[in-house]
């Protein structure tokens, strides 16, 4: 805002007629020693600023219009700085007076009020009450309050997304762990509010940074439990977890299946098993039996002849290690799905006596007990077909005790219309 001394002092006044302005008394002193009361703020609020900065008077030593303009421009700039952030103006470093160019001759001088003691630091109860009448247009007021009330989750997240981007660009020495946690939280909040697309756009923008997030189980569980995708959303939803490794998902299955995130862990695993079944197979064969029992359920549609050798090895290991009937059954089912004819041939060898050449390789032949034989029978009985019927008939002569009874019952059920007893 331009300072107009003419306007301040009246039409007739000239710059060189003003001697002094008293900011406390709102008074102008002229060279002829006359005084005039005025309201400075109506002309130039810079006077309030100067008063606020501790100046009591402004003295004029015949400045020309140009000097006044320079001075008032500088004071206006200081004022803007001060309003924007009162903490950062250094009163002592500011140039308050205006001098003649290239000389020390003062043209406008700001005179400091006598020094005063500072008050003690302001405690909270000295904040003024706001009880003066609210002279503000009702329509504007309602619009402002509406703006607060109508902030949607989407609005808040859009703002947050912008803040995250600014923060990322401006921050030096970004703590990658904190950063990934923050991103994870914002993704969670998006999902908690049903904003799948917002969550996806956040992930797309910061995919690399999410890497560290997957080590933070509570946050991963929060993201997983935040949203239950509909069937047509699963593919998009699963993209959020693209960098979440299968090993981690498996460990979550092991540890957090009973948590609120459980259904989503299963959903994610089902999708990932479709997409990455070969990787999951590699993980499965090397996992503990408890995890194998879970993973084998997901893998059943993906067994191919090329997996057969690995599966047979895993079945033999399972039978050697312990009498875990359930696990043995899962492996047998996998074996059948992988290469059925070969599986039946190999399984038959667990019941029939070893041939001569097999006896020569006695160390390689697996001896299995009756319980394990029964589990093979049970697993196969759940896959009724002509070839399994033939299998049972083939092994029947070699079966003994309870195994023979089981085989008898299974064969009977084939002839009685699938009614097993």
């Amino acid at each position: 805002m331009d300072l107009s001394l003419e306007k301040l002092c009246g039409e007739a006044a000239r710059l060189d007629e003003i001697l002094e302005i008293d900011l406390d008394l709102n008074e102008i002193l002229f060279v002829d020693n006359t005084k005039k009361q005025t309201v400075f703020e109506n002309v130039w609020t810079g006077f309030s600023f100067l008063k606020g900065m501790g100046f009591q008077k402004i003295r004029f030593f015949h400045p020309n219009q140009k000097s006044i303009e320079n001075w008032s421009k500088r004071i206006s700039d200081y004022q803007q700085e001060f309003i924007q952030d009162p903490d950062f103006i250094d009163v002592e470093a500011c140039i308050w007076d205006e001098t003649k160019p290239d000389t020390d001759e003062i043209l406008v001088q700001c005179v400091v009020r006598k020094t005063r003691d500072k008050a003690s630091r302001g405690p909270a109860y000295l904040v003024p009450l706001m009880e003066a009448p609210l002279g503000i247009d009702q329509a504007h007021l309602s619009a402002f309050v509406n703006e607060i009330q109508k902030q949607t989750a989407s609005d808040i997240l859009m703002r947050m997304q912008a803040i995250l981007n600014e923060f990322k660009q401006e921050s030096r020495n970004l703590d990658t762990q904190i950063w990934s946690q923050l991103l994870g939280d914002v993704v969670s909040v998006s999902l908690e509010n049903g904003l799948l697309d917002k969550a996806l756009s956040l992930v797309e923008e910061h995919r690399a940074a999410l890497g560290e997030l997957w080590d933070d189980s509570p946050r991963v569980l929060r993201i997983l439990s935040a949203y239950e995708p509909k069937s047509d959303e699963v593919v998009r939803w699963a993209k959020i977890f693209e960098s979440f490794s299968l090993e981690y998902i498996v460990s979550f299955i092991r540890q957090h299946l009973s948590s609120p995130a459980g259904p989503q862990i299963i959903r994610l695993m089902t999708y990932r098993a479709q997409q990455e079944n070969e990787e999951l197979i590699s993980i499965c064969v090397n996992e503990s039996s408890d995890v194998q029992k879970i993973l084998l359920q997901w893998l059943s549609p993906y067994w191919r002849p090329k997996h057969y050798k690995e599966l047979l090895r895993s079945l033999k290991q399972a039978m050697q290690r312990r009498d875990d009937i359930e696990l043995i059954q899962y492996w047998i089912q996998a074996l059948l799905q992988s290469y059925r004819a070969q599986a039946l041939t190999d399984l038959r060898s667990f019941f029939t006596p070893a041939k001569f050449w097999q006896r020569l390789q006695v160390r390689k032949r697996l001896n299995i007990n009756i319980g394990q034989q029964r589990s093979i029978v049970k697993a196969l009985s759940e896959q009724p077909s002509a070839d399994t019927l033939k299998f049972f008939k083939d092994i029947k002569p070699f079966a003994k005790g309870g195994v023979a009874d089981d085989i008898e019952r299974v064969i009977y059920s084939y002839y009685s219309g699938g009614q097993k007893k």
Partner: protein
Amino acid sequence: MSPSIMRDINQIFSCDFSQFEAELNAIAQIRKHDEYTYLHCLNVARLSVSLGKRLGLDEKMLMDLGWAALLHDLGKLHVPLEVLNKVKKFSSEELSKMQSHPLESVVAFAKLQPVTMDSMTRLSAAFEHHQRYDLKGYPRVKKKLTLHPFSRIVAVADTFDAMTTDRIYQRRVLPDVALKIMSQGFGTIFDPIVLQAFITCMGAFPVGSLVRLSDERLALVTQYQKHSKIDRPVVQIISKDKLFEKIDLSSTENKDLKIVHSEFPEDHGLDLKDLECQK
């Protein structure tokens, strides 16, 4: 949880503190880091909530606004004390450190607790309160979004409190003068609606101002009544450290009396706290 902090906050707005343990912890950290910043945060919260009440915000919004204001300077936890309380001009490095506190608040909020929808609003206020209404402040942003309404309220309250509080490196400005100075930021630095509401609610001479009347008497502004004009509050005459008669400057019988200007209480050896007790 510190009982004194809860007491201080309870004087500003009511809330179930058991829901805000992390926030209380953050306030305690601010207090431990720098007492001035703590008092400043309380003042900003008090001013923001008072304005919010006058604007007609409901209890939930007032509580959200109160927390946003209390935590607006959380990023200052990351500014070293020697920079925070520096007496002389900041070097460019120190200035940049000081001006990084809105950015630092993002980290401070992330460390506080897992971010929620509510804490995002608080975080926004902490990030935006120096950005100015025209977005020409700091931190400089590439994507220009209108500031959150809470950020606009906190920005006004923050500036007013910073101007009217004595600092190690700076004398304070009288409240009425501060309002006049701030009016220059109308529509550029501050939201015009918020600033107008703030100034009109405060009155030309806010309650608690020490003023010189046109008959030379010194008085304390004690109240604005419903019918009061912005520059004609109820005042109480001061003489020899004591409060005497109340004068309603809005009443016709006092139409010839007016406030000339405000003055610093300490220039008259007065302590406003003592005067408050006499009211």
